[in-house]
């Protein structure tokens, strides 16, 4: 089984990657600006909704219910989709999904040794690394989301989940377009650049016969698939080609068509701070004379089923990929998602990426959080991300403690020692006395400096007051019974 989450297996640990990301002032400024804008808009749109908390609860309830009956709803979706003329394929992991996609594209490109496919942005395809697999098979994927297109034409990497071309300014984009679109007189105004992209892509939309998309929701009751978008490239890819291949993570299924009434209210407000995003496309199987006449769904597991056994871990699968947690997270704000080493970054990435890969990779991600709870506050399906983080930390620690190196790690010994000290008043007060004596070694001008070990990471950048000469308890014992409190 080759469960894969992007290139996460090769990514450096979070603290190391974060250190890198923190150096990039420009990107940090851009990310701060972008997240501020969306957060403010989100707050505005949410404040308008007197029933926001009820919608969140309903979303959470619906997702929990669905996951508790996931087999039932997946079967129902598959049956209804096929009844309507679609074909449903099941993929256990990334390799299997890619192989299915490649075979389908080849089946439908009999006369073309180097087929092209147009793509609607889907993080699921990044998760399974679909594009490199297609290219290796001689198939050219053409990204049609504006930012992904800029990145692709610029032979670059996405710098951000929400706004992948955030690192490119208008002049750089103009230069890319001038070169790749053969438009020597193109100006750098966003209006002109957008118009150029519109014309360039339109030509591709009209002639490419195969499209690949993801989906936001798969409705079991009817076999309907729903794609939520802003730019219109989704509508183009979902309507114009002859063949449509849609990649859907198994957690995207929802029971009833009417359930959309909850998610289509919470998703746009959470994701982009809009009352409603410009376009939602819904289709079921194949409709004669309207849209692709060959429709294939690839249902993807790739590690998701592993999360079902534990109820807390199962919550992770409630995610509707709105990104609100990213925008709310103070850690993400500083590191811009590059530090997470995974297509899924921010708070949801910190719990999803490691779990999909059975905690073999991305082990540092559950620790990439202060547990401040800002994510939980904004999650439209009420995933208790801090609770899942603590749970994952527990699993990681328990796993480490089974190994000799884990048992002997400085952190483990420190934690064991601290626990022993906290358990006994005698030991605690002895430790305090010892600390009062020992800290004099590290005192300079009333501050503690150059502390050894892990504590050194504190004193390298922050001052630290020494333990006071008198503890609160001692002070309380000594004060006169009727006195007022000590003034400062």
């Amino acid at each position, binding site marked *: 089984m080759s469960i894969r989450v992007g290139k996460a297996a090769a990514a450096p640990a979070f603290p190391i990657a974060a250190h890198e990301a923190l150096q990039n002032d420009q990107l940090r400024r851009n990310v701060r600006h972008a997240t501020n804008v969306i957060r403010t808009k989100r707050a505005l749109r949410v404040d308008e909704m007197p029933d926001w908390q009820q919608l969140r609860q309903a979303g959470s309830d619906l997702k929990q*219910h669905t996951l*508790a*009956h996931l087999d*039932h709803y997946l079967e129902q979706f598959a049956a209804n989709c096929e009844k309507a003329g679609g074909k449903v394929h*099941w993929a256990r992991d990334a390799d299997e999904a890619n192989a299915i996609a490649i075979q389908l594209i080849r089946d439908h490109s009999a006369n073309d040794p180097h087929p092209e496919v147009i793509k609607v942005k889907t993080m699921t395809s990044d998760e399974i690394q679909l594009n490199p697999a297609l290219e290796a098979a001689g198939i050219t994927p053409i990204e049609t989301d504006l930012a992904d297109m800029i990145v692709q034409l610029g032979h670059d990497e996405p710098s951000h989940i929400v706004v992948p071309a955030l690192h490119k300014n208008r002049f750089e984009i103009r230069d890319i377009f001038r070169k790749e679109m053969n438009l020597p007189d193109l100006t750098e105004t966003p209006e002109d650049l957008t118009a150029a992209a519109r014309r360039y*892509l339109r030509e591709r939309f009209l002639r490419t016969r195969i499209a690949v998309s993801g989906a936001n929701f798969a409705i079991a009751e009817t076999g309907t698939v729903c794609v939520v978008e802003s730019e219109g490239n989704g509508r183009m890819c979902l309507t114009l080609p002859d063949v449509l291949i849609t990649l859907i993570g*198994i957690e995207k299924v929802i029971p009833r068509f009417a359930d959309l009434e*909850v998610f289509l209210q919470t998703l746009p407000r959470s994701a982009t701070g809009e009352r409603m995003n410009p376009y939602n496309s819904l289709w079921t199987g194949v409709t004669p004379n309207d849209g692709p006449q060959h429709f294939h769904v690839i249902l993807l597991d790739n590690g998701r089923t*592993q999360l079902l056994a534990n109820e807390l871990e199962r919550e992770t699968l409630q995610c509707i990929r709105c990104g609100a947690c990213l925008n709310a997270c103070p850690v993400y704000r500083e590191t811009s998602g590059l530090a997470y080493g995974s297509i899924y970054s921010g708070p949801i990435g910190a719990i999803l990426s490691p779990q999909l890969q059975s905690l073999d990779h991305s082990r540092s991600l559950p620790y990439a959080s202060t547990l401040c709870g800002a994510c939980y506050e904004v999650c439209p399906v009420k995933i208790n991300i801090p609770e899942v983080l603590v749970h994952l930390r527990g699993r990681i620690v328990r796993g480490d403690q089974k190994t000799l190196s884990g048992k002997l790690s400085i952190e483990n010994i420190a934690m064991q020692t601290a626990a022993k000290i906290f358990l006994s008043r005698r030991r605690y007060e002895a430790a305090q006395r010892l600390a009062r004596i020992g800290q004099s070694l590290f005192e300079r001008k009333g501050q503690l400096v150059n502390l050894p070990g892990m504590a050194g990471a504190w004193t390298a950048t922050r001052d630290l007051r020494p333990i006071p000469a008198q503890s609160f308890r001692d002070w309380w014992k000594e004060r006169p019974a009727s006195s007022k409190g000590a003034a400062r």
Partner: protein
Amino acid sequence: MTAREQILATIRGHLGTQASNPAASHALIPATYNRIGRLSPEARLELFLDRLTDYDSEIHVLPTSDAIPATIAQVLATTGETQLIASTAFPSAWLPSTITPILDGNLSIEEVGVAQAVVTTCESAVASTGTIILVHQGAQGRRLITLLPDHHICIVRRDQIFEHLPEALTPILPNARLPITTISGPSATSDIEMTRIRGVHGPRRLTVLIY
């Protein structure tokens, strides 16, 4: 074992014994959010107009459907558009006599691509979000015809306008398996230096006629 069988078996294994009646427990999920609006029809219309204005849509509120053909003609005259497309099922009485529309039943992409403007009816609308919902059949046309032209003229009947999304979805349920598109303003992107630009793909102009 096929992939399907294996995935389903894994799921069942992890979920353990579950209640065998998902429909029953689904029905038990409380829906305490607002499903029905409380605004009067006039207030609802005002709200809808406010949202459409936010999207820079051109709006014409008509006393009756009699004014539709003349309004369409006037709109097209202002924009100078002459190539209008409509579904063959679109009421011919509503088409202006001054132009010869392209009528779509199953035209090719190239044939539809000639159209500059498209006129359709709609299935329902949501006032609070300024959303128009099309179910692609009859006078609402195939998806293709509201996708390629640059100008979409949409005819909305007053009683199709609901305050909240749940009510607007209810009339659609019987047709849930048809292609459906919800439209809330023109397309948009903020990908270039976080500057919001309207009109990337799909019609850049939306004109709404309400009768």
